[in-house]
């Protein structure tokens, strides 16, 4: 059973249906006990970093997620959910994150060529930089669907894949049992479904 954490941020319909499509049981929940019982956790999210952290903190979901991660439970953040895994974000001021992966979330406008559109919206290719089980069935150059204006600036050892948008932008990250995708696997066709399947069924030590 995969717990999709519901903290009032974003649309979880496609995510839960995509897990159903690959034969995985999931539950959209904000119940601590259900999350503790779940074998794996997905932290979704769209919107602004600061608001999302506030909502996570409202019912102490931040502490719960950190405790579960510390216990070694596989945790995957998606889009803003991935950004929340980092130490801090510079979106509308400076906000602290869950600090499960070292790094800072910064505006893509700081690193991409002027004139390129912000947000990056659309399908872009993955370049794999480190092995990790959630991308084991994804080939170099497969495209996934991005919608984002911020990116995770982190050390190369935490980057599993990046994507080129005039600059190399972090696409997939991992630190032990904690991982995340900047793109939306639930909107990335068969490639995305394979990533979700690897997360759902795979083992961490590849």
């Amino acid at each position, binding site marked *: 059973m995969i717990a999709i954490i519901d903290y009032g941020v974003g*649309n979880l*319909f*496609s995510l839960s*249906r*995509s897990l*159903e*499509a690959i034969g995985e049981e999931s539950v959209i929940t904000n119940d601590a006990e259900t999350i503790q019982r779940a074998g794996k956790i997905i932290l979704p999210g*769209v*919107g602004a970093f600061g608001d999302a952290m506030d909502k996570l903190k409202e019912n102490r979901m931040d502490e719960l997620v950190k405790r579960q991660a510390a216990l070694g439970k596989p945790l995957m953040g998606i889009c803003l959910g991935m950004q929340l895994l980092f130490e801090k974000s510079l979106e509308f001021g400076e906000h602290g994150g869950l600090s499960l992966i070292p790094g800072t979330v910064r505006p893509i406008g700081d690193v991409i060529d002027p*004139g390129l*559109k*912000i*947000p*990056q*919206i*659309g*399908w*872009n*290719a993955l370049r794999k930089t480190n092995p990790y089980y959630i991308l084991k069935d994804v080939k170099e150059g497969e*495209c996934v*669907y*991005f*919608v984002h204006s911020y990116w995770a600036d982190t050390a190369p050892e935490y980057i599993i894949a990046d994507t*080129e*948008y*005039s600059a190399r932008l972090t696409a997939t990250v991992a630190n032990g049992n904690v991982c995340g995708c900047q793109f939306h696997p*639930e*909107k*990335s*066709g*068969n490639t*995305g*479904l394979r990533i979700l399947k690897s997360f759902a069924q795979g083992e961490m030590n590849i």
Partner: protein
Amino acid sequence: MITKRIIPCLDVRDGRVVKGVNFEGLRDVNSPVALAQYYSDCGADELVFYDITASADGRKLFTDILRETASRVFIPLTVGGGINTVEDFDRVLKCGADKVSVNSGAIRNPSLIDAAARRYGSQCVVISADVKRVDGKYRVFAAGNRIDTGREGISWIRECVDRGAGEVVLNSIDTDGVKQGFDLEMLQAVCDAVNVPVIASGGAGCIEHFITLFKTLPKVDAGLAASIFHFGEVKISDLKAAMAENGISTRL
């Protein structure tokens, strides 16, 4: 580099695709779900469902098929047609739409864009504009291209983006249905005016028109079409292969 998107548009009335479509292996040619699945398998990068239903019963059927499609097809879905209030956004987003396109609803009430962008984010709000030349000027038309709103096209689109629209679909009434190619001149004017993704619509008749579009106007992000895909005049897989051959970044 980010790829150029190819987007088929399906008109849906009372839960059924309006123009019968005949593809090999597709049994129910009027099923939006089957057709969406087919296009997704062929490499479509995104789908637009346009609800042309008039009745409340039809609306219910539309959200039913939307929910079913979003349960089986995992690429971005944009929904348009009959979007007049923030509640309409809510209704279709809950059923699995990723983006909502507004047209007449925004012309009647431009602050709908501000309200929707505040609540759901700009990435969710698409402004779709039907523009036609009148006495050499771009003018916005409403209500199925019948009513000249008197608004200037480019400034209207810029206003929508300023209000929070995150993408623009430009449908040129002048080239729509003519199948002689996209309206490059009008698209250029829009690309010069805004810095959000621009989706070209109206005029595609063959693969070459898409190649010309993306080669001539590198700032255009996507090409949208309906009948040429539905009637098999252009196969999406062939189109994408041709794009790749011509050095246009595409998802194969």
